């Protein structure tokens, strides 16, 4: 990424640090970011993954001008997050998976309130509010007060609010947290549409690996305030040297399987399946099949698949 022209970068953060200090008498310090460098190209969906407390929300908040970094430089859409914060705010927005808005305001009032803060008024504001309410299927709840809405509806309101200013860069902090599967699928579809139709840059944090793999062009793994790896899901899997998984149903199960050449490990996956991780499937699968035939082992089923992103996550989070 370092070779990318700076004007094509939506985010260019270098050595960003942030330490939280608390306590009046006994000062406690918690280093949330320890020199994070991150580049995200414009028009990309970028996923930020990491265990709890890794620094995902802190990094997102710095990029969204809600937090001031202690050190390093962070430029978003070509503007410095500290010096040019006010100009930058017009071009950003954010939604989180734990949304919260004023309890007595109605759905259309919430969206319109934030619309006005972003400079919309009159017919343009009404059109934008109506369009977002329709897009997020909130028409029948338009006059419902926020505290009467279900979790899923609240999240849809948060997404509608986050799009009121047609942001160039959208931050989504766990956007499908606690949503029903069907709603999650729709939210993911909306996110993909936003990038495809409007060329919006989207940075999202998530705990769902499948979501990241399905949506994101690139993924960054953050742990203990440091980016440990960044790249496409495939590149990360290769980078981690996790190999490929050969899932087998054998009768009988040969004792030598885990020691066979090129087999990194074998685990019992239940229901008679054995998952063996191999270094090169093109070479190892024919070798294994020949050995099975020679030993009279019956192969009842065989599947070859890439390792899951989750396995990359587990490896990095270790």
């Amino acid at each position, binding site marked *: 990424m370092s070779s990318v022209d700076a004007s094509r970068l939506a985010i260019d953060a270098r050595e960003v640090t942030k330490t939280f200090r608390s306590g009046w008498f006994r000062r406690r310090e918690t280093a949330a970011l320890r020199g994070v460098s991150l580049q995200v190209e414009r028009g990309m969906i970028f996923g930020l993954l990491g265990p709890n407390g890794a620094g995902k929300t802190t990094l997102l908040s710095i990029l969204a001008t809600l937090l*001031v970094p202690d050190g390093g430089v962070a430029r978003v859409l070509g503007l410095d997050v500290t010096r040019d914060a006010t100009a930058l705010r017009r071009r950003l927005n954010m939604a989180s998976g734990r949304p919260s808005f004023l309890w007595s305001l109605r759905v259309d009032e919430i969206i319109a309130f934030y619309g006005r803060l972003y400079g919309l008024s009159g017919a343009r504001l009404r059109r934008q509010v109506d369009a977002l309410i329709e897009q997020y299927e909130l028409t029948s709840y338009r006059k419902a007060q926020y505290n009467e809405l279900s979790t899923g509806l609240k999240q849809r309101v948060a997404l509608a609010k986050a799009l009121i200013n047609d942001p160039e860069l959208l931050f989504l902090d766990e956007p499908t947290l606690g949503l029903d599967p069907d709603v999650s699928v729709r939210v993911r579809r909306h996110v993909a549409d936003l990038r495809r139709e409007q060329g919006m840059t989207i940075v999202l944090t998530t705990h769902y690996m499948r979501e990241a793999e399905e949506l994101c062009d690139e993924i960054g793994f953050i742990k203990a305030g440091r980016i440990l790896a960044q790249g496409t899901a495939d590149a990360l899997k290769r980078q981690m040297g996790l190999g490929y998984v050969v899932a087998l149903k054998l009768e009988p199960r040969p004792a030598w399987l885990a020691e066979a050449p090129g087999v990194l490990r074998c685990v019992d996956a239940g229901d008679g399946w054995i998952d063996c991780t191999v270094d090169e499937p093109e070479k190892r699968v024919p070798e294994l099949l020949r050995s099975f035939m020679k030993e009279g082992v019956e192969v009842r089923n065989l599947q070859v698949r890439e390792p899951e992103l989750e396995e990359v996550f587990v490896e990095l989070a270790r």
Partner: protein
Amino acid sequence: MSWRAELLPTYAVAARNLVMGVRNVFFFFELLFWPIVGVLSIGLMTRFLGLTPEQGAFVLVGTLALSIVNVCQLEVAYAMLLDVWSKSVKHQFMAPIRIRHLTVGSWLIGVLRGFVIFVLLAALAAWAFDFHVLRPGVVAVTAFLAGCFLTSLVVGVFVCALVTLFGTRAEAFAWASVNLVLVLAGIYYPVSVLPKPVAAIAAAIPLTYFLDAYRSHFGFPSEFAAPVTTGLALSAVYVVLAHWAFRAAIERARQTGLLLKMSE
């Protein structure tokens, strides 16, 4: 700086506060119940104590100021408190909004609510206690109301700064602070009865001068020279100081992460 860019977010905040106020179950109590209870109890007490009409007017002026300042400063504090209570602070401060939009928008609704209370209480005081607020003339009443509203703005913005700096822990102090200001400003008595050091503090509070100016029309000689001008000048200084404090508190909350802690 365009007028549209100034007016639109100010209007947004004012409209939000108005809607939240109208839908608040305590709205009736804040707007009617407590102010009416205050005027009736104080007015009846003046009757029981056998005060002269002038002395009664002196005390009732204080009751009016208390009701107006309480409601108006609370509305200004809502600029921050509504978002703190609903944990939506980050959305507000991620938007391109300035502090003055927040405070002025909230203050306008505070002025509206304060004015409604003033009209209601003035009618009640005239009917029940023969106390006529317009007797000193429109200019004097306008100056008195301006003093109440400016004091409310100052107190409310300082409360916002405190809440932003210390979180909800500061709420209790915030509620107490307005009452302290009212006590020091000579709400039911002339500041000359206060001990000297306390009277010096009272002399630094704008409301002291506006109360003094208004009461001078009811037969109590003014304790200060040019009280209205002094009150306005002090108010201007405190308005600037309060906004500076609020701005500094927000910047600090962006440093410490309190802005996030007060959010989702």
